[in-house]
């Protein structure tokens, strides 16, 4: 397996650091090397926030993303701030319900109404991060759907299993349709 670099960006409070941890934990379940890090402003809510996940089969030294394979952008600010530097064959995933305007002339851009799906299909906006991460896993196959499901269920509060499972399935299905 090659080294995968993910940059998950949006605004504080959207659960992107949690999404990064879940992706990392799914990779740990498969025995892979993982480093997860983040950068955020001083605000607890709002402000551009990013979580980074590196997954590899060999030991990871430099813990930050050098050039991402995958960018997720869930806010207009994040799309503008983080949505330019990417590998030549990378993919940018945009939450089209949060980002009005985004273009990249070199790499593939996939526009998915992630937050709208969370609100309309699952009934809870806060599951948007789970839909997003399931979409990314479906897109890259960096871990199996089963590993992701286990990682999600290990981390979420009791009583939210059904809605999070639904969110994962929605994200996964959209990824298979977009491929």
């Amino acid at each position: 397996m090659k080294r995968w670099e993910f940059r998950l960006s949006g605004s504080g409070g959207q659960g992107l650091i949690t999404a990064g941890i879940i992706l990392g934990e799914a990779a740990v379940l498969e025995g892979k090397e993982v480093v997860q890090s983040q950068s955020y402003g001083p605000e607890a809510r709002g402000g551009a926030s990013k979580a980074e996940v590196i997954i590899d089969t060999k030991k990871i030294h430099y813990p930050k993303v050098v050039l991402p394979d995958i960018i997720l952008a869930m806010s207009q600010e994040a799309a503008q701030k983080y949505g330019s530097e990417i590998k030549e064959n990378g993919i940018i995933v945009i939450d089209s319900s949060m980002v009005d305007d985004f273009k990249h002339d070199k790499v593939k851009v996939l526009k998915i109404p992630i937050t709208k799906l969370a609100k309309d299909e699952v009934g809870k906006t806060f599951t948007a991060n789970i839909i997003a991460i399931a979409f990314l896993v479906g897109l890259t196959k960096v871990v199996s759907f089963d590993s992701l499901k286990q990682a999600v269920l290990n981390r979420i509060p009791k009583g939210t299993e059904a809605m999070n499972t639904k969110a994962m399935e929605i994200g996964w299905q959209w990824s298979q349709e977009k491929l």
Partner: protein
Amino acid sequence: MTMRKASLIQGNRACTEGALAAGVRFYAGYPITPSTEIAEIMSEELPKLGGKFVQMEDEIAGMACILGAALTGKKVLTASSGPGISLKQEAIGYAAMAEIPCVIVNVQRLGPSTGGPTSSAQGDIMQARWGTHGDHPIIALCPSSVYECFTLTVTAVNFAEKFRTPVYVLLDEIVGHMRENVELPTYEEIKIIDRKKPTCAPKEYKPYKIDESMIPAMADFGTGYKWHVTGLFHDETGFPTGKTDVIDSQLNRLMTKFSKYEDEILLWEENQLEDAEILLVAYGSTARSALDAIETLRNEGIKVGLFRPITIWPFPEKVLRGKLEKLKHIIVPEMNYGQLMLEVERVCKDKVSVSGLFKVNGLPITPDEIIAKVREVL
């Protein structure tokens, strides 16, 4: 508690797990980014183990509070970042003078002043050495990984107890906040050191009576052993003195009390140093960038190696001096304007030229930046 498996753990959490494993049962402090998780986790975990967590009104109170607890026999820890560490300095000097075991975790952020709360830096290297006034002994350890956040916190607690000194664990924001998949040691695999207690009767106890170990035995307050604690120069009873010969011998002992334990205290790591012509001296998260740079440069046949001081203070100068024979140049990459480079230069400059690679904008030094610097000096 002893069964562990690989999991994704944050550096700050590993630090708390190391502290608890080493026997820390008292924490006082005032939370500050990027160290806050340490206070949070200690507040959750200590009560479960019969320990105490106190959130104090400010940072200096937090420092003073752990010293009080340490005097009663507890193993103690506080954590903060630059602005808070500055406030703690008075009490850190008191701990050095009165020889009170304590561990201070500094998760370094960008300074000076309140600087950049969520930005990484390594700007507190010299503060760790000389932050409090007057000549004083100090130990500072610098982890590069989540695993080391655990093991070096254990080591810090052990050093504090054995040598009766304040010990810093110097993380940087990157090491403190990143998560890695690690398998932490089990409790059975950890060596624990407890402070030396007096064996004499309470009436005969002299709290600063020195034997060949250089480290006086320490009684717990409240157990019948009487003891006067002061930041003033004191004789073996602990009471203040103005006698210059006593002052002279006390300070001389404080400044040399680690000397006979250097083999134990000085920790470092070497990577591909044997045939190296260019040496990188790097620590903390920056050492990780250095390892990637070395891999790339070695693939091109450029002989680069790493010397990573894990014990930053006392600086492992004799060890480093022993590595200079084949070297043509030393580069010190660090997230400050050359604090450790000055130390490396002091130790090495008569034999090898030294240059620095500094970055002080909150961002990490990348492997590519180190590679470019190596090419520049080739």
